[in-house]
């Protein structure tokens, strides 16, 4: 501890605290440009100069640690004139074209000059200019280097947080221009974090260019509607159009960072394709008519012939009310929240990831000695979670192990990267467990165990070498605490969950602290499960009468046993792994009600379509993958006659039971608190708070442990693929794209501008072997389907693995799949062959 004096006030802080942080703690504001918590300190801008008694020169407080007994002045006249001097120099060559600068009104330089600056400049020479016109760096970024203050935050955020290294500084001194090579982006993630950190109007958003002034915008503090990282952001509108989404420093677990989907993808709510009025057999109708038709369709039907599927993009309140409607009003246990995987997979995953034990903070996970990421392409699926992993893992001594068939950006931070075959998570985890167990044996026994035929089988099934597995096992055995980050592959290939559960138990038995954090790809997937939108448990994972999941509902529909199906926000046809089956089955449902914001493939078959609300038009709560309950806020008015989903679900309930409720989101939340012990303490007040010292881990938002005990999961047949294949054949995997996730992103103009057509990603070596080059059109042919897609190569992926993202309409990836057939094989050939 060090005791120092700041402006005469005595304060005691930890050793090595920066003067800046100490001063802020003591309540003194010091202006900064280049300092940002979480980024490497470079002390380049000199805005934060302070006077230290006994030292002749002023010192930058953002890189100078305190020393015991220091006496510091932060607001003497010397400091004030130094600040004014720094600003005068910054303005010497600054473009100062505020009237046309998009940053005007929220510019840190404007604020600083206003507060500390010289009122006049003395520089008479013509200003130096990098360029005349703003230049476009990428589809989302436009740049004007003449306004740069050389703080290098853009360069640092790109390298240290995003991990892309696209930006660098060209030139020296005040002629130094932070930009990209050739002023074009080669391999940019388009997340716009450089825009967000830039204190001036140098990096600017292209989609927001010349649209507004900050004071015209009305904002709402909300949660990103894409993946389950649950980034907090502010969405802002002008004249009813959502214009931008931005993150805030020190708010939410993401602080100032977002990914491309969150920052640029929210404009889907403006889409002209929104459904704005109720439709009965695709004819416009009034709400009264539509509801009367729903009443007809559901009246007199038996619960077991009724089903309901609600998307994991709805709020907890809506999901809770939905399952209440299905269970109590319709007497039907047939409820599900996803059509991509079956409910047993979900149960097994919840069990293996101990989700019923309450929330797990990602920041806690990153305290572990070893972090194992498996079953998730975290770099594309949960980009901001990946930023957090990168940022923290580069700052402390720890093991980061990544097991995935596909190479990813985070590999560069990993100590061990394991490339296994698709759907082989179980084999990988079992092999690791086997080696860890063998570690307890003597040397001779160990050799024998490893040579054991079971081990050989596992290694072949996983397509990995024994050394890699032993290395991982060694690192795990040597760690006191282990965190396992388990992704959506466990839901696609649920046999892996038993491997996960086993490894978790083995490590626990060895006396280690083990935490498992799930990563999910729908904003409220966890909430959907915890609200009981699942055929075998109710809210808070309480045991419930077993019903049918989406898959079973489709099978029953195929047999003509489904009289009425209520689908909210889910596009079963596009998501179910076997498109043709889903379409035929749904067309056999006698009465199909679809509530959605866009005309989805499923909605096209509906008898009644009810127009719902997007995340920006309602209030409620999402639970992210860690189990943080966070609130979303209403910003926009509903388009046309659309209604909030909660109101629609309640109106449907009231058709059959006049007292169905609760009547509004607040009361529903009260009821959730009562019936779901995990949510008994949830309050939506605390989670919008800004914290000044950059503590991003808001633990109060984490949900608590569930009351009941989850039944252990059953065994699943392995769907692993063998590595023996013909020359052109690949194992096809799918998942989220960095720019596209689910269906909303396909209605976002900006994201469509980034990538429109489907891509198929294979590893570089395979491409070279087959003579393909990145960017060419190839034909991907499976047993059931073929598509044309643009080839993308990746360095370091497992050979013979082809990846087609889920979201693209021109490559309906679920057409390649057939029920019960596991990972499909596809062949890739030149398009014109």
């Amino acid at each position, binding site marked *: 501890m060090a005791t120092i004096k700041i402006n005469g006030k005595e304060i005691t802080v930890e050793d090595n605290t920066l003067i800046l942080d100490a001063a802020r703690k003591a309540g003194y504001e010091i202006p900064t440009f280049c300092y940002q918590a979480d980024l490497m300190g470079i002390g380049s801008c000199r805005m934060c100069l302070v006077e230290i008694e006994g030292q002749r020169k002023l010192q930058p407080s953002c890189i100078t640690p305190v020393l015991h007994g220091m006496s510091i002045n932060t607001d003497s006249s010397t400091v004030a004139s130094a600040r004014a001097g720094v600003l005068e120099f910054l303005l010497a060559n600054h473009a100062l074209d505020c009237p*046309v600068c998009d940053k*005007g009104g929220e510019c840190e330089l404007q604020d600083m000059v206003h507060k500390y600056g010289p009122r006049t400049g003395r520089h008479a020479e013509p200003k130096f200019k990098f360029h005349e016109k703003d230049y476009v760096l990428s589809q989302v970024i436009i740049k004007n280097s003449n306004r740069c203050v050389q703080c290098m935050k853009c360069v640092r955020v790109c390298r240290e947080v995003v991990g892309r290294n696209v930006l660098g500084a060209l030139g020296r001194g005040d002629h130094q221009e932070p930009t990209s090579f050739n002023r074009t982006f080669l391999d940019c993630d388009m997340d716009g974090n450089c825009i967000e950190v830039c204190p001036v109007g140098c990096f600017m958003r292209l989609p927001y260019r010349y649209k507004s*002034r900050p004071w015209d915008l009305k904002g709402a503090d909300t949660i990103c509607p894409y993946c389950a990282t649950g980034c907090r952001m502010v969405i802002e509108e002008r004249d009813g159009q959502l214009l931008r989404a931005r993150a805030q420093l020190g708010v939410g677990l993401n602080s100032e960072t977002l990914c491309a989907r969150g920052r640029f993808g929210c404009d889907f709510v403006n889409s002209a394709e929104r459904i704005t009025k109720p439709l009965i057999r695709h004819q416009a109708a009034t709400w009264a008519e539509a509801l009367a038709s729903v009443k007809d369709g559901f009246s007199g039907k038996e619960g077991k012939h009724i089903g309901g599927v609600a998307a994991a993009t709805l709020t907890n309140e809506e999901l809770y009310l939905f399952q209440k409607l299905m269970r109590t009003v319709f007497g039907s246990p047939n409820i599900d929240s996803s059509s991509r995987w079956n409910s047993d997979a979900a149960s097994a995953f919840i069990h293996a990831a101990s989700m019923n034990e309450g929330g797990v903070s990602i920041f806690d996970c990153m305290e572990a000695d070893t972090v194992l990421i498996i079953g998730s392409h975290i770099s594309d699926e949960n980009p901001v979670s990946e930023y957090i992993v990168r940022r923290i893992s580069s700052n402390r001594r720890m093991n980061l192990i990544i097991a995935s068939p596909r190479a990813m950006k985070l590999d560069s931070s990993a100590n061990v990267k394991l490339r296994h075959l698709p759907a082989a998570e179980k084999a990988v985890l079992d092999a690791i467990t086997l080696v860890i167990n063998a570690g307890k044996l003597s040397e001779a026994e160990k050799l024998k165990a490893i040579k054991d035929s079971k081990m050989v089988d596992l290694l072949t099934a996983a397509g990995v070498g024994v050394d890699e597995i032993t290395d991982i096992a060694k690192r795990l055995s040597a760690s006191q605490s282990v965190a396992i980050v388990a992704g959506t592959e466990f839901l696609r290939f649920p046999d892996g969950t038993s491997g996960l559960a086993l490894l978790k138990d083995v490590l626990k038995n060895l006396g280690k602290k083990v935490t498992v954090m799930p990563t999910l790809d729908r904003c409220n997937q966890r909430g959907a499960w915890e609200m009981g939108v699942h055929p075998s448990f109710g809210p808070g994972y309480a045991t419930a009468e077993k019903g049918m999941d989406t898959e079973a509902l489709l099978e029953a529909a195929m047999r003509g046993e489904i009289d009425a199906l209520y689908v909210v926000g889910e596009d079963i046809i596009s998501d179910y792994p076997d498109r043709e089956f889903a379409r035929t089955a749904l067309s056999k449902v006698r009465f199909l009600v679809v509530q959605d914001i866009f005309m989805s493939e499923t909605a096209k078959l509906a008898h009644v379509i009810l127009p719902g609300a997007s995340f920006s038009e309602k209030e409620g709560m999402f639970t992210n993958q860690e189990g943080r309950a966070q609130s979303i806020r209403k910003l926009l008015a509903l388009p046309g006659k659309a209604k909030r989903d909660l109101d629609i679900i309640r109106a449907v309930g009231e058709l059959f039971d006049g007292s169905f409720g609760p009547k509004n989101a607040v009361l529903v939340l009260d009821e959730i608190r009562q019936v779901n012990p995990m949510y008994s303490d949830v309050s939506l007040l605390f989670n919008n708070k800004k914290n000044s010292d950059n503590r991003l881990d808001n633990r109060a938002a984490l949900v608590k442990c569930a009351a009941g005990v989850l039944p252990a999961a059953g065994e699943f047949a392995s769907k692993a693929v063998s590595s023996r294949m013909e020359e052109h054949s690949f194992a096809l995997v799918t998942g989220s794209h960095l720019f596209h996730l689910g269906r909303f992103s396909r209605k976002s103009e900006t994201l469509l501008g980034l990538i429109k057509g489907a891509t198929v990603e294979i590893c570089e070596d395979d491409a070279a072997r087959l003579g393909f080059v990145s960017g060419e059109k190839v034909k991907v042919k499976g047993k059931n389907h073929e598509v044309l897609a643009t080839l993308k190569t990746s360095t370091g992926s497992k050979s013979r693995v082809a990846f087609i993202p889920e979201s693209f309409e021109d490559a309906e990836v679920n057409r390649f799949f057939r029920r019960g057939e596991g990972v499909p094989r596809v062949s890739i050939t030149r398009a014109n062959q």
Partner: protein
Amino acid sequence: MSDKKGGIDILDLIKKVLFTDFVKGLRITLGYNVSKSITHRYPDEEKWIPYRRFRGVHTLNRDEHGRELCVACELCVKACPTSCITVVPMEDDTGRGIADRVAKIWKVNLVRCLYCGYCEDACPTRAVRLGREYELACADFKCTVRNREELLLPQPVPESIEGGLVAKAKFERSLSGIKVTADLSATKKRAW
């Protein structure tokens, strides 16, 4: 009061007898009767052309190359105490404006405006200036909002005329409304 203490004021009495106040008043009346009239025969025959400093309906201006001066910075909007200006910017680098940022929408609600001129002061490019038009009466609310296209039209009274003049005018009434057109070639100085 003290000098009036002695009962009847002699001076007052004399004034009353001689009708002094009456004559004074009458002199002013008669004087105006024979002096030159300063009433404008507006709108039938004459119209007042104000000085340049007059604060009438807004004008949007161009530079010498005909490019719009407004860069849609919205500072006038911010400065306006009655929030009667709406500006929506857009990008246009075809040379329409002096910068690639131009106004997509620029409109002002004239019945909310209090002609304070703050918008003029705020404008960094002197694009908006309060002009010399003051005839705002109309029978329809539509005419209370002026938009960019109208405000960019050349002014009926050119900048070169200093103002402070009375011009011959014609009053026209048509279906589209009433109009007082001044004949700028026939002007006279104000009478005082």
